[in-house]
């Protein structure tokens, strides 16, 4: 390894909470060489971001380094005060964050925000700082940089905002850049462009980088060395190849197994020891619909135009059989969520029709559809389980509510039995039912969302990115649950996702959307193995696969 730039030695970080001190980082030891790119991988709560924030001294007021040292160029960062600290922050060491749009000041022009960073650390005139900011916008390859200088964050796409963040971070040529989930929430194609840019800039400027991510595949693609964190500790540190071919620690094995790859199947997402339990469930074969049965769902030439703008969705047609699973993929803005919401009858189509089980429902106004007897047949699972559950409803209320509204059940023993049965079907422990959403983990909330959706025994479940906010290990369990529900209860799944690996595993057929129109559709595996259009190929190639084959070996 090259000369050491950063050395973290037995770092402990604790947060004071209402329930006392909670240790988030418990003895992390790490070292980063000059110009090196290190991957720091772990699931939520593993302490990876906290380690990053402790290094850049950006911990919340409640967080405190309670032990250990962070040596940066031989200086202990944890002991810096006042001006010494400010000379470090943004100058020698900088950071970029998850959710770039929120990380930029919404009411300050981006040129000024870049110039702020320059003016803080260099004694130059405002005009000179502005000129430098413009150069930086060019360096991060923003089109038409002169015009963008005066733009506000809300006028830029997420990918562009992250480029601006990168421009701010590199403005004073730092020796170390910490990128905390820099591409989470961006499209796969945007993710690739942003990460390539970041890697190029880091290489060109000899900048060391710590890439903090939950995505093993991403870290494997860009880093020579990966440290895996679990519950505040580093459990394994190795090259990507070793991690994927011969993971040593049990947690790494679980994480590697749960990360979807180009070839994995749903049953592969757990380690071999755990597969036993799953095997009993998948034994029931997938039922092929008999020939000649009418489709469960038929969508004809659906279109949606929002006020004044161009069509968000145009000429969208598809059919689904009972118990079938269809994936709807595309980048943000492709119209996949709009389409799924129209099919769910949450918004009204501008044109076209939706036929469910022989009945036309496209013309029932969405605000009246809750009175339709078909409402309970078409249910939805929403993207973010944190946001889509009413914070004042307990898990029990969430699941019971549709039963009372749509099935006409009254509070009582029968209702309690039905709710408990739903909870059992999704694997939600019954003692969690009286809890409120903030008392549940992400995976538990996702289960409540699914239990609520299946409570009325729907025949079609529309899922809008149901696992996007979840850790891979939780995602694995949720995917298995969905697959099992489909097999056992014959529920058709319309699965909206930007994660092609997940769609490939879960869906029989896939529809690729772009700018509101269908680009390509077909059998999932065939479509991804042999994409017919450039767009699909670009999507597939952008996924950071965990490459265990020759591609990775060649790269090393």
């Amino acid at each position: 390894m090259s000369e050491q730039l950063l050395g973290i030695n037995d770092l402990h970080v604790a947060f004071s909470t209402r329930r006392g001190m909670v240790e988030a980082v418990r003895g992390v030891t790490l070292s980063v060489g000059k110009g090196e790119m290190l991957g720091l991988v772990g699931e939520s709560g593993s302490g990876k971001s906290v380690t990053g924030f402790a290094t850049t001294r950006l911990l919340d007021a409640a967080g405190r380094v309670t032990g250990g040292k962070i040596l940066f160029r031989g200086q202990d960062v944890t002991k810096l005060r006042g001006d010494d600290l400010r000379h470090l922050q943004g100058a020698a060491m900088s950071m970029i964050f998850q959710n770039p749009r929120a990380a930029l000041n919404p009411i300050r022009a981006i040129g000024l925000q870049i110039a702020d960073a320059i003016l803080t650390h260099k004694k130059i005139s405002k005009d000179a700082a502005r000129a430098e900011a413009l150069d930086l916008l060019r360096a991060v390859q923003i089109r038409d940089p002169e015009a963008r200088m005066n733009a506000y964050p809300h006028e830029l796409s997420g990918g562009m905002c992250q480029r601006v963040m990168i421009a701010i971070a590199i403005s004073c040529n730092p020796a170390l850049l910490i990128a905390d989930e820099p591409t989470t929430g961006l499209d796969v194609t945007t993710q690739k462009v942003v990460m390539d840019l970041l890697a190029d800039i880091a290489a060109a400027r000899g900048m060391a980088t710590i890439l903090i991510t939950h995505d093993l595949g991403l870290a494997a693609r860009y880093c020579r060395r990966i440290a895996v964190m679990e519950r505040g500790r580093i459990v394994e540190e190795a090259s990507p190849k070793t991690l994927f071919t011969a993971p040593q620690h049990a947690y790494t094995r679980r994480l590697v197994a749960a990360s979807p790859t180009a070839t994995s199947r749903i049953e592969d997402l757990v380690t071999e020891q755990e597969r036993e339990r799953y095997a009993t469930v998948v034994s029931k074969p997938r039922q092929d619909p008999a020939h000649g049965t009418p489709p469960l769902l038929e969508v004809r030439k659906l279109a949606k135009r929002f006020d004044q703008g161009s069509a968000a969705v145009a000429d969208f047609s598809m059919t689904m059989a009972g118990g079938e699973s269809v994936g709807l993929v595309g980048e943000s803005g492709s119209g996949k969520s709009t389409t799924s919401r129209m099919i769910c009858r949450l918004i009204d189509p501008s044109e076209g029709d939706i036929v469910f089980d022989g009945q036309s429902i496209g013309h029932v106004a969405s605000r009246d559809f809750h009175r339709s007897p078909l409402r309970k047949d078409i249910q939805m699972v929403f993207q973010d389980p944190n946001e889509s559950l009413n914070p004042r409803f307990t898990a029990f209320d969430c699941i019971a509510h549709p039963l009372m509204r749509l099935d006409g059940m009254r509070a009582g023993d029968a209702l309690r039995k039905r709710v408990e049965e739903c909870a059992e079907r999704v694997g939600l422990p019954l003692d969690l039912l009286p809890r409120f959403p903030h008392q549940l983990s992400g995976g538990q909330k996702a289960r409540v969302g699914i239990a609520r959706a299946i409570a009325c025994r729907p025949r079609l479940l529309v899922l809008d990115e149901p696992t996007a906010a979840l850790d891979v290990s939780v995602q694995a369990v949720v995917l298995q649950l969905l697959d099992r529900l489909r097999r056992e209860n014959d529920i058709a799944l319309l699965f909206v996702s930007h994660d092609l690996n997940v769609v490939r595993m879960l869906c029989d057929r896939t529809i690729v959307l772009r700018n509101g129109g269908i680009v390509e559709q077909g059998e999932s595996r065939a479509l991804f193995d042999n994409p017919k259009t450039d767009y699909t190929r670009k999507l597939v190639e952008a996924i950071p696969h965990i490459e265990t084959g020759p591609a990775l070996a060649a790269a090393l």
Partner: protein
Amino acid sequence: MLSYILRRIVATLPVMAIVALFVFSLLYIAPGDPAVVIAGDQASPEDVERIRQSLGLDRPFLVQFGSWVWRILHGDLGTSIFTNLPVSTMIGQRLGPTLSLMIITLLLTIVVAVPLGVVAAWKAGSLIDRAIMAFAVFGFSLPVFVVGYVLAYVFALELEWLPVQGYTPLTQGFWPWLENLILPAIALGCVYIALVARITRATMLEVLQQDYIRTARAKGLGQGGILFIHALKNAAVPIVTVIGIGIALLIGGAVVTESVFAIPGLGRLTIDAILRRDYPVIQGIVLLFSFVYVLVNLMIDVTYTLVDPRIRY
């Protein structure tokens, strides 16, 4: 932008019309015969009849309202029953002191309350924060007249730093003008300062949690730059809103403050008019205050667009 302001002014017309209707109805909402009410307890039936005739109270309500509005649109607010002077003249004479008091109070509030709120949010949970918030609760709880009399006693009677009461027009010099307004402005501003400081603190606390504040810290910006350039401007919309709503508080408070400090302003005129049942004057003043308030709201909405580029009309 200009078309937005014009549209907003047009949109205020129905509001003003409803206010006018309400103000006009004041006379009729009060129980009993308006003419008897105006004439007072000792009036003879002849007096009542004379008033009824002179004010046109014998005509139908809508006709009266119509001719009243017509006169107002021509700048005629009517004539005082008590002094026989035009209402507009009476208001004009009293406008200066009230306007002075309100502007000084407004400036004082912004200059004191916003920094207090910012500091409290920055040092949230500390002794300074608690002291500021304790002061805010104190300011809320004390009635204007209590604060007024205590201030007058301490700073005017005991220390003799400032005049006890009265008013000097600006035309007679800046300091004599200001000197007379300092204590009233503090008394009147107490509640207002407490309110604005609290809102500033709450909004700043929320803004300081945002990701872009962390970005500003990551850039190495100093505390001042973070608080005033990045945070305060983002917190501005709720603060400006409360400052605007507070103008209503000021209008109400001015009535009391002017009585305490013997300032010959609109507040005093209001009280006098109410005591004398001088309905044309009451109507004129209420209409003016409503108009000012509607105007202030318009100004607030326009301020939003200056503060936040995401707000477009």
